[in-house]
């Protein structure tokens, strides 16, 4: 496992060379470990596709580099063996997005085949980012890989299902966005009221790193 300093207060650990089922399970095990056994002095952590960032409190951990080797030992020993299997979330989708036909044409598929290709796979939530609850899902059928729009739309409605490069995902709230929109779900991926009701911010997010997702055509 490689590690790097990311400024004076953060360490970045690379746990995989490229995204894969093994990388996904490793990332999930690390996140579970950090959530279940919070380490003193850690103020935030962020998994990416192949790396995890750990941000330290400068007051409690003045020089995180000195602890890099301990952290590598800890992250290496994180294993998914004892974890329950990942949850599979079903996301109902109406495939009627404004870019669906263009995505199909580019893939040299009919619209129906495109819908079948997109909804036929079980995706992995590798990471969340861009906006609260925005999950980067892989691995997308290579035929559906579609470059992001050259000019992002200023407003993409909440629930829009899109394709950005080699990933697919759902916009949890109305934001600007450059992904190709192929459909829409009525499911609320980000609902802060659920967090307030339970006093646990994690409950605001329907999808979490380590989950699996399947899209169900409506």
């Amino acid at each position, binding site marked *: 496992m490689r590690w790097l300093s990311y400024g004076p207060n953060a360490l970045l650990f690379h746990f995989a060379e490229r995204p894969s089922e093994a990388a996904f399970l490793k990332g999930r095990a690390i996140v579970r470990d950090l959530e279940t056994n919070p380490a003193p002095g850690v103020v935030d952590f962020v998994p*990416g596709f192949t790396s995890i960032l750990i941000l330290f409190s400068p007051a409690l951990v003045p020089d995180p580099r000195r602890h890099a080797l301990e952290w590598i030992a800890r992250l290496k020993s994180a294993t998914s063996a004892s974890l329950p299997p990942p949850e599979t979330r079903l996301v109902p989708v109406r495939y009627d997005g404004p870019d669906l036909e263009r995505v199909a044409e580019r893939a040299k598929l009919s619209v129906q085949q495109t819908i079948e290709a997109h909804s036929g796979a079980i995706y992995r939530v590798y990471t969340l980012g861009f906006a609260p*609850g925005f999950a980067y899902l892989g691995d997308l059928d290579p035929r559906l890989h579609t470059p992001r729009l050259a000019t992002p739309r200023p407003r993409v409605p909440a629930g829009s299902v899109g394709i950005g490069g080699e990933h697919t995902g759902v916009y949890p*709230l109305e934001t600007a966005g450059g992904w190709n929109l192929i459909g829409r779900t009525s499911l609320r991926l980000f609902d802060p009221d659920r967090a307030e009701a339970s006093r646990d911010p994690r409950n605001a997010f329907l999808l979490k790193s380590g989950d699996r997702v399947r899209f169900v055509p409506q």
Partner: protein
Amino acid sequence: MKTSANPNDVCYVVDPGMGAHLQDLGRPGLSRFGVPRGGPMDPHAAGWANQLLGNPPDSPVLELLLQGAKIAALRPVWAAVTGARANANVPLWRVVRMDADDMITFGASQSGVWTYIAIEGGFVDEPVLGSVATSPRVRLGRSLRRGAVIRAAADSRFSLPQGVAGRMAPSKEQRDYRNPPPLRVWPGPDWDAFPSTARSAFLHQPWTISSRSDRSGYRLEGKPLPSTPKPGLSEPVLIGTVQVPEDGRPIVTLNDGPTVGGYPRLALVDQADLPWLTQCRSGQTVRFQGTA
């Protein structure tokens, strides 16, 4: 406007100017869900506004963009205004007394971008994910529009002795944003992926703040960096990271920006120097300096 319905109603937004939002220290610890930390763009100035009044550092303050705001008091209250200069009708960086119907007004912007108003005990609002901080891009918090009423904490009234009246920040803390020092940068995770020509060009040329800059990120204009590495998978991005898209024009990711990104991460602006950057207006230039 003169009769206040709730005894905790403390201020009234007569005019939000170019933007008025409440900020506390934001939502740290939720980056893995895609929630940006948010919070004040200039924690130095916001921190002084609170400190002058003896407030805890996480007390919500009012963050104003550039110019034009008019904020009225609904009852007597101690306040402090810090940060960007925009022809305010009260002195900055010191405690001021407001009586009912007094109004703090801002005219044309002079220097800096972000101005802060704190009141004794802090403002309050309904928290979302544990914070009242406003991140407009991701629709967290609320924009304060004309006519909005802001509340004070219930027990804050008259909690300060009269002696606070003259309290002011030391002059060296009253920053002049027209002349930022060189900003210290750390190597980013992808520093080694950039050719030395690009790293050297980044550190040795002046960069101009683009008008396409906001709470999510400031874009830098200058001679584009040569041979920028290709974008890759989405990996974690810290606030203050200098990311470089393929066009070679750096973007500094800021408080409301994405928590992961695919552009190579060239450098990280030191947290202590970041407020100097965020207080730069479009057209102002900055230089970077490597940390030893």
